[in-house]
């Protein structure tokens, strides 16, 4: 199972910190999975100009190809100006329509204010749905107060990250079984 953790921002450290916990939990609980963490702060990616993702070179080519080859994508995003950051939206724009078909996608959100709780529900989920993902419905929402010196200091958040990772892998396994059974019926 190929899993990509995507830290969707070039600004700040909270999302990346939380994604480190996700990757750590994955490697501890599911050592057989193949996990790649992509932190957009480490890449130089142009805005989408509409070409097929296979035609991008360099960082944009690497990031899009790695995501397209993944079975599972765990998206980490901060909330800026009551929305997802442009860096993350650009990744969606670089990918083809239905890019997440047959992939499981789950989400983790960091924010400076609890008022942003529904941003993922109202702005991120519709994009991921449009791109045809199997979505893990519950996401982890983490506030500024849960972090201190690039660590998570709230055990409840750590428990929630544990559940997110588990739900993501369980959905992937379940969905794969269902799909396999369905496709066997087609006979080709």
């Amino acid at each position, binding site marked *: 199972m190929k899993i990509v953790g995507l830290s969707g921002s070039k600004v700040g450290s909270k999302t990346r910190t939380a994604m480190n916990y996700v990757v750590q939990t994955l490697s501890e609980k599911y050592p057989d999975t193949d996990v790649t963490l992509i932190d957009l702060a480490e890449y130089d990616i142009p805005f989408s*100009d*509409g*070409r*097929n*993702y*296979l*035609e991008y070179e360099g960082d944009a080519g690497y990031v899009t190809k790695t995501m*397209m080859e993944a079975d599972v994508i765990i998206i980490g995003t901060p909330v800026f100006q009551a929305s997802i950051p442009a860096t993350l939206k650009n990744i969606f724009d670089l990918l*083809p329509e*239905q*890019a997440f*078909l*047959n992939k499981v996608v789950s989400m983790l959100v960091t924010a400076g204010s609890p008022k942003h709780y529904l941003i993922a529900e109202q702005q991120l989920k519709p994009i991921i749905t449009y791109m045809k993902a199997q979505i893990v419905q519950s996401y982890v929402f983490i506030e500024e107060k849960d972090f201190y010196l690039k660590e998570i200091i709230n055990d409840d958040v750590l428990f929630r990250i544990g559940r997110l990772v588990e739900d993501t892998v369980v959905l992937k396994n379940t969905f794969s079984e269902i799909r396999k059974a*369905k*496709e066997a019926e*087609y*006979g*080709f």
Partner: protein
Amino acid sequence: MEKYRIDPSKGLEFGLYTLGDHIPNPLTGERISAEQRIHEIIELAKLAEQAGIDFISVGESHQEYFTTQAHSVVLAAIAQATEKIKLASSSTIISTSDPVRVYEDFATIDLISRGRAEIIAGRASRVGLFDLLGYNLRDYEELYEEKFELLVKINKEKVVNWSGEFRAPLKNAEVIPRPQNGSMPIWRAVGGPPASAIKAGYAGVPMFLATLGGPASSFSYSIEAYREAARQSGFDPSELPVSTAGFFYVAETTQQAQKEYYPFINEGMKVTNGRGYPKQQFAQGADKRDVMNIGSPQQIIEKILYQHEVFGHQRYIGQMDFGGVPFDKLMKNIELIGTEILPAIKKYTATN
């Protein structure tokens, strides 16, 4: 229709097209040489002609996993190797070519083939060739519109006066040689959505519509929009031929056809387009109402006749060689087309 060398009383024209893809056979992992692939395409055209197929076309694609970048050269070889079958591009990327040179090439192919050549001009679904050939992707639409217009003008006028943004002006230019009858059919290649079809209608030129998968009724919106746009621009839609193009594969049973062709389409789409073909949608493709002509001879006959009823089109062309399908399978396809599919289609669509 006569102007476009089509006689509807003879029924729906049936053709084949290749994009000239050069992809490893997914079942063996092996890829034939580019040399062999090109020879097989020429051979395919000869076999298609012998089977009574009306038309064959070769595409231009400059990306990895393709081999007919110089598609007009391949068409010239086919022109020499055949006698009756109509020949065209599917499509010529006019945006990144000089319309004068394209016209010279295809007029020459028309003379070699004694009046069988046509041009289908498109604007590329992939854009790597803009870098390769030195064009700016930001001019995607302008390049296509300007160059397509010039191509059509050269076809209509013996002496051309023209100026535009992307090419040096033409002053009393005579583009020669002329095709056998002075002009040749030039079609506009159109993807799925009506917006593109409408532009073909405004220009009053015949339309080639790509229909990979999905219900025929969805594509009929584009055809209706095309005819309506032509009518609004003062053209008579009954004088403008429409052709559709899409996946084709025939075997003894529909199940067998799906089983044989799916791995080629799925793997071929992965390497050329970055995504496989969803099995669920492919499975739905067997339905009579879906445009994908993959199935038993009887199923395909029913589908094509149904599409003819919905579209009222003059030509259908099928892509059966995508993704590295071995040549013996292509021969089997041609045999079934010639012995079972063509006679039925002609019988039910010809009016004389």
